[in-house]
């Protein structure tokens, strides 16, 4: 059994523009998680002024664990991430990857891991800085099914999860904009169930 329970989630909305779809899906995710007693903090990234990573590595060398640039809320965001049990990436699938808004935050998450290497899952990764990392849940959106983009997205979520020391496989769903709310809600519920089963087996 896992020593940690799934209680808190942080949801990063990486859509570049507001839409009824992303608002309704966010509400659906929050609601379904609430049914499992998981509280969600949704963050709409396009509304936040977050600077891009400047590659200085001060967060590893000079101010370990913290970005030295404190003019934006990235340190608070990283605090919330590490104190969450689920890190939700809700994004339009962009050539198989995440949107630029998601990447703007993710690039500055390296302070959450150590600069030192170790072998995990048969390959090199950065050591943990903290004892507990959230499970990565990728929720990607496409207009229509696109196997190539979906495969890249799945692999990206998997690699992100490995970097946060999760080796039970990618937890992700692909939503299509034309799908009905009942289909979307069912996908979300199924994914939450899978997540909980995998988490309990961690």
């Amino acid at each position: 059994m896992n020593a940690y329970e799934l209680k808190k989630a942080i949801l990063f909305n990486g859509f570049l523009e507001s839409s009824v779809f992303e608002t309704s899906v966010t509400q659906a995710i929050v609601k379904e998680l609430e049914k499992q007693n998981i509280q969600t903090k949704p963050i709409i990234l396009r509304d936040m002024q977050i600077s891009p990573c400047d590659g200085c590595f001060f967060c590893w060398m000079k101010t370990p664990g913290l970005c030295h640039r404190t003019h934006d809320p990235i340190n608070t965001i990283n605090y919330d991430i590490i104190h969450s049990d689920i890190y939700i990436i809700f994004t339009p699938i962009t050539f198989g990857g995440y949107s630029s808004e998601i990447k703007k935050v993710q690039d500055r998450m390296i302070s959450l891991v150590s600069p030192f290497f170790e072998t995990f899952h048969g390959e090199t990764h950065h050591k943990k800085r903290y004892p507990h990392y959230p499970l990565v849940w990728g929720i990607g959106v496409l207009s229509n099914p696109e196997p190539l983009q979906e495969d890249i997205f799945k692999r990206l979520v998997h690699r992100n999860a490995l970097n946060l020391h999760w080796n039970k496989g990618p937890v992700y769903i692909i939503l299509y904009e034309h799908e009905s709310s009942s289909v979307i809600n069912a996908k979300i519920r199924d994914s939450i169930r899978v997540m909980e089963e995998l988490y309990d087996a961690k």
Partner: protein
Amino acid sequence: MTQSDSEQSFLNLNNHENSHRALLLVGSPKRKKSTSFLLGNYLLEQLRHYGFNVNTFMIHDIVQFPSKLPLFYQEIKNHGILIMAQPLYFDSLPYPVIKALELLNIKQEDLSLHTKKLLVIMNNGFPEPHHNYVAIDILRCFAEKTGMEWLGSLALAMGPVLSPKNFNFFGKNAKKALQLTANALHEGKRVPDVASHLMERKIMPYWIYKYLAHYSWKSHARKNAKQIDLHARPHE
């Protein structure tokens, strides 16, 4: 900063003229001090020997200096071969590179992207090159969706080892890979498999790289007057 070979800002080059014009797009925040620039610029130098007209643009300019966006678009228009060189950031491309892709996608018709070719050089700080593959596939997907011809990719591991000072020694395989790539482009071909394999060869044994990396972090921390705990957990 853009280093345009000429002040001809509004060239209206046709596809044939563009085919021997290569634009290096550097996606690292370290710009000219980056491994990305080191590799990409070496390729440009080889292409210049073959008579290519070459230029460089720093992708971070489009987020740091948004007024340079029109110049970015014009440089894209003026070149038939785009060489994107960037580091791996959290298993994917750095934010400014993704932003550039989003913007180019919107303007793909204006910029006639379907007449252009894309070559990718990825580098990462892990000792294994396969960490680069998802990022490369994202760029390949971009090429496919915009109708660009995919010229192939080169993936380097242990990127932080390389510098201009040691490039001749530690970069032997990388240089050879880039020379072969330039030759292939000159002949109108894609990145040859032999070049991809050469680029992926280990620069040094893993245990030495790991030792040097760990030593480097510790010595950087010691340079500061006060004791720094590299394992600090400020969010606890």
